[in-house]
Structures are given as C-alpha cells and as structure tokens.
C-alpha cells in the first residue's frame, strides 16, 4: 500500500504545485491588454458616445474611465443616469433612439428590457457595446460584449487554484453565490470541477444568498455557515463588493480568525480589508480594461476594421501587491496608454 500512497501523495503534491503556480502566475500584475492590433485607418473626431449608467456606484467610475477615452479621441460622451428600474432604463434607451449617437455603451442590463429600442438604435446605425451581461453579441443585436460568462469561468478556475494552494491541498471551501446575477454562476460552474481536478480530497459547496440579504445579514449568514460547518476554513465570494462588507468584523466577533477569505470584484472597502490583512485575496475587476475595450470596439466598428477578442487579464491581489486601498485602479497599469497607442492618439 505504501507505494500507491506515495504515488498518490506525489500526484497530489504535483497538483498542489500546479495550483500554486497558477496562483503565482496570476499574482503578477498583467502588463498587456488583450487587444494587440493597431488601427491603421484614421479615426474621425467629433463622434458622439452615450453611456447608460446603471445606477450603482461602479457605474460612476466607469463613466469617468470612458470619458478619459473619449476625451483622447476628441469624441463627446453623454452619460444618462438611471435609477436601475426597468422603466428608467427603457426611457434611457428611448433617448438613445432620439439622440442617434455613434455608439452606445451599457453594463449589466438584460437585453429583453430594451429589445424594441435596440432595433431602432441599430436602424440608426448606432454601435452597441455591452459589458457584464449574459446576452451574447449577435449580428442583429449587440455588436460587442466584454465580461461574458465564458470569461468568468477563467476566474472560477483561478479561485479553485487559490483554495488548493492556500490549503496545501486539504481545503474545504464554501462558495457564496448571488443567484440573482446569473453571470456569477459561471464562476462556480468552473470552480467545482477545477477544484476536483487539482485536489480530489478538497470539497466545496455553493450557498446561494438572496438579493434581499445584501447589505443586511450576509456576514451573519457566512458566520453561521462556518460555525455549523467547522471543517470549512476557506470562503470564496462570488462578488465581494456585495458579500464581503462587514465580514471581517463578524468573523472576528465569532472567533473565526483562522478562516481565509477570497473573492472577486472588490470595491474600495474590500481593498482596505486586503490591505489590513482581514481578507486574504481577491481578483481585481478590470473596470478600466472593460470600458476601454468597449470604446475600442465602437472605434473599430466606426472606422470599419474587424473587432478584436474581448478577453480581459486576470490579476489576484493580496496584501503584498496591492497598489492602493483607497481607490480602484486598472489591472494593466498603463491600459490607457496602450489603447491610445493602438488608436494613434495622445492622452
């Protein structure tokens, strides 16, 4: 029996090493954006972009990022704020129909809400670019999508590697999902098999958090889970700007200081938790990269060159490589300059 044991332990060591190398690889800050092809035709100035803001905090940042791009291009940006209710989103699209801009950008709204307006927008010749939606890009609908479920699967795999690496191949983990956001489900879809592959002894369970718990009793739910599952020491959050807020204090009060927490999509609060060591790591959300990718898509469509792959870089941040805890930052440090170079403009 000893031989097989050694063999299996060798195999498991190998897998742990693989996990560690995946984590190590993604802990290095990416330096290149996925788009490589420069635009060889001149980009006309004076074009008009519209951004439909979702009404959540991140959208304000996104608006600023887009503005830095349009300013460099000599384009104008109009941001329409909505409160996130379907009617107001629809009204914003009605306005896009009236305004006839050259491009419209939006994030995280299902297409069904404005399907009718979308047809008219297309008829006006407006380019439509989206982020963070399960709706696919199709010939007669959205021209370009970044932040797709497929891209999220990549993140799920990295999360699995993190659990294995941190636990030296012994981790029992729990994944907190928000069912209301289908795009997050892709994370677990990839996480579970990847964890099984990297660590057959590890286990993970997905726990669904209802929308109505956000901002209220999420930390209490997580603490309760951990108390009733004392073997679980690794917590993976599907969206830590919604799930991690207040968690460190709750873990501390419950004496669960040995639990490690990892996530995806931090806000400044989460960055702060990472900075002071009360959270262990997270995958940075590529706000800058995705906004620029959308603008880039509109630019390419406008000048008539083929669109490029919408993949975005993955970066694990932890206490040691965190650039700042008081503001959000790009994944690729000079993302702006790299795009400007592709566009042939100066920032």
């Amino acid at each position, binding site marked *: 029996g000893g031989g097989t044991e050694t063999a299996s332990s060798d195999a498991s060591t190998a897998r742990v090493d693989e996990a560690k190398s995946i984590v190590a690889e993604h802990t290095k800050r990416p330096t290149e954006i996925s788009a490589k092809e420069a635009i060889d035709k001149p980009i006309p100035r004076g074009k008009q972009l519209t951004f439909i*803001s979702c009404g959540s905090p991140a*959208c*304000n940042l996104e608006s600023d990022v887009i503005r830095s791009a349009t300013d460099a291009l000599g384009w104008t940006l*109009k*941001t*329409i*704020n*909505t*409160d*996130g*209710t*379907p*009617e*107001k989103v*629809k*009204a*914003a699209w*009605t*306005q896009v129909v*009236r305004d006839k801009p050259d491009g419209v950008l939006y994030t995280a709204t*299902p297409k*069904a*809400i404005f*399907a*009718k307006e979308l047809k008219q927008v297309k008829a006006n010749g407006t380019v439509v670019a989206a982020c963070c939606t399960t709706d696919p890009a199709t010939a007669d609908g959205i021209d370009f999508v970044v932040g797709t479920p497929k891209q999220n699967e990549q993140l799920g795999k990295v999360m699995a590697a993190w659990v294995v690496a941190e636990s030296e191949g012994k981790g029992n983990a729990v994944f907190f999902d*928000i*069912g*209301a956001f*289908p795009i997050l489900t892709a994370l677990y879809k990839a996480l579970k098999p990847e964890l099984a592959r990297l660590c057959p002894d590890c286990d993970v369970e997905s726990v*669904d958090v*209802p*929308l*109505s718990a956000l901002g209220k009793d999420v930390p209490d739910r997580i603490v309760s889970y951990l108390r009733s599952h004392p073997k679980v020491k690794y917590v993976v959050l599907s969206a830590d700007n919604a799930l991690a807020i207040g968690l460190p204090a709750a873990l501390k009060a419950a004496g669960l200081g040995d639990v490690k927490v990892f996530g995806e999509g931090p806000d400044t609060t989460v960055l702060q938790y990472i900075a002071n060591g009360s959270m262990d790591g997270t995958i940075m959300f590529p706000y800058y990269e995705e906004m620029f990718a959308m603008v880039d898509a509109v630019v390419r469509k406008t000048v008539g060159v083929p669109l490029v792959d919408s993949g975005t870089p993955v970066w694990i941040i932890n206490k040691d490589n965190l650039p700042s805890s008081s503001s959000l930052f790009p994944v690729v440090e000079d993302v702006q300059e790299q795009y400007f170079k592709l566009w042939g403009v100066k920032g």
Partner: protein
Amino acid sequence: MTTDSTAHPTHAPTGGEPPAAAPELTARTLRATFGFGNIGAIWVLLLQIVLFSVWLPDVFPTAATAKQILNSNAGIALAALALVVPLTARVFDLSFAYTMSLSGVTVAYLMVHTGMGLPAAIGIALLAALLVGVINAIVVVVLGVESLIGTLGTGSIIQALITFVTKDISITDDRLTGSFTSIGQTDVGGIVLPVFYAVLAAAATWYVLEHTATGRRLYAAGFNADAARLAGVRVERLRFLSLIASSLIAGFAGIVLASNLGSGSPTAGTPYLLPAFAAVFLGATQFKHGRFNAWGTLTAVLMLGTGLTGLALGSAPPWASNMFTGVVLIAALASSGVQRRTRLRGRRAP
C-alpha cells in the same frame, strides 16, 4: 399688532371644495381651486417645464419629450394607483410591490415552463394577485394586524415564494417576446399602452371614490372608522375589498411591467415601493385638500417624472436626480402644507 387682519373680520376658511356639486365661480372658489395650496404640484410642474425649456431649448420642449415622460412613468403611475383605494380606507399595503413582482414572474413562468397561452397565464397571474389580496385582507382585517407591518410580512412571504420558484433568476425566453411584450410595448402615436392603462385606472378610481356611495364610505371608514361603523358603514368589509383592489391593480401593473421588461424579474416591483407611496401622499395634497385621490396621484407622478427626464436629457450628474426629487417633494408639499395645517387647525375653530 397686525392692523391688516382686522380688515378681514370675517375670515374665510380655505377648506375642501365639493367634488361634483357645481361650484359657483366666485373669487374664493377660484382661489381655493387654483391656489398654490391646492395644486402646488401643478405649479411646481409648470415651473420645471419652464426651467428645463430655458436650459435645454432644443431637446426639452418637444413632443418627443412629452411622450417619453408619459411612457416612462406609466408603470409607477399604475403602482401608485394601486395604493389610493386602501389608503383612502386607512390601510397601508406595502405588499403591493411584491405582488407586482409576483404577477410578472407568474406570467413568465407559466408561459415559459408550462407553455401556457398568454390569456390563461395572465388570468392565473391575476388570480395569484387576488389570492395575495385575500391573504392580506385576512391578516389585516380578520387577524387585526396593523396593516403597515402585516403587509410587510405578507410581502416578505411573497418574496420568499418568488425566490423559491425562480431562485432569484429572471425568467427569460423567446416565448416572452411577441404577444406578451405587446401588452406593455405597443404604442399608439408614440404613446405606449401602459399610459392608457394608467389613465383608465385613474378614471375608474376617481369614479368610484367621487361618484359612488362606496367611495364616500371608503373615505368615511378611513377618517373615522368608529363613527362610520355607527353610521352603518361596513368598515371591515370595505377594508377587505380595498386590499383586494390594491392587489389586483398591483398584479396588473406587474404584468405590464414584465411585458415591458420582456421577462419575469423576481425583484421587478421592489424599486416602486417608496416612490409609489411618495406619489400617493403628495397626490393627496392636490385637488382634494388632503384626501387621497387618483388625479392628484397622477399629477404627482408626472411632477416627479418630468424632472428626472429633464435631468437625464441635460446629462446632469448622478447626484442631481436624488437632489431634485427631495427638493421637489418638499417644495410641493410645503406649498400645500400651510393649507393643510389650517385645515387641521380648523377642527378647533370654536
């Protein structure tokens, strides 16, 4: 010492005008009807229109803007109208927002997962809303639970059921395009059907409250349940019915909303909770001197919606809409406030 006050020895109180009895067109009637106190929201609305037209002369004062305002406020108008009747009978129905989600999800679920036809699905969704109304009524009227909390409780239960069935995921499918979306998205001369539904619902509410004995009894039950009871008004039955009415209207609003969304969203209704109450209470200060009423509610919805559209047209910063809503709510109510206070004080007129 105010010398001017002695110049008006017979003080004319500004009170409620009758709804239907032909008013003589005296200066006093005119003042009471068109004075700032009675239609503050309309003046604020007009002021907004002037200001936005000056600020955005090209885009704001257009027919397209008018249509956009109407179209984008039909849903909230329907939601608010659901509240007028129960509030008249002094019953809070906080569950209406959840009922909206419920009926939308029900239609979508039935069409997508059972392949049911649209009319049948709508019928069952309305039945579900009716059931909610009955349960609310049992909780509030029969069990005697304070309506504000009782309906928050039923709302919470409805949300639980929705989560149970949908797992909090919107129900979308190709089967939901076509006839289903046409309920909410068909437009007539640029104005979508929900606008007409809202006007119809307002007209019906107005007719019931102003022109039927039931309406008068609803007000009586709301103002003074005990006296109404002594006068032979069946207060409990009216409360029961008013909760059913609100659930049915909310259920209908939810179907319209889902059709607008093209999907059954498990949380579609919740954003309407506070705005709808704000509109109904603001509406109560309009036209009818503190009584909940349908046209006042519509006016309030338009007054709040116009500004938001204007701000969006002018690409105002993200904080502007909240600021605007707050200021306008207070302005419209304060201008009616003096009025209302004197009415309340009037009770003490010896």
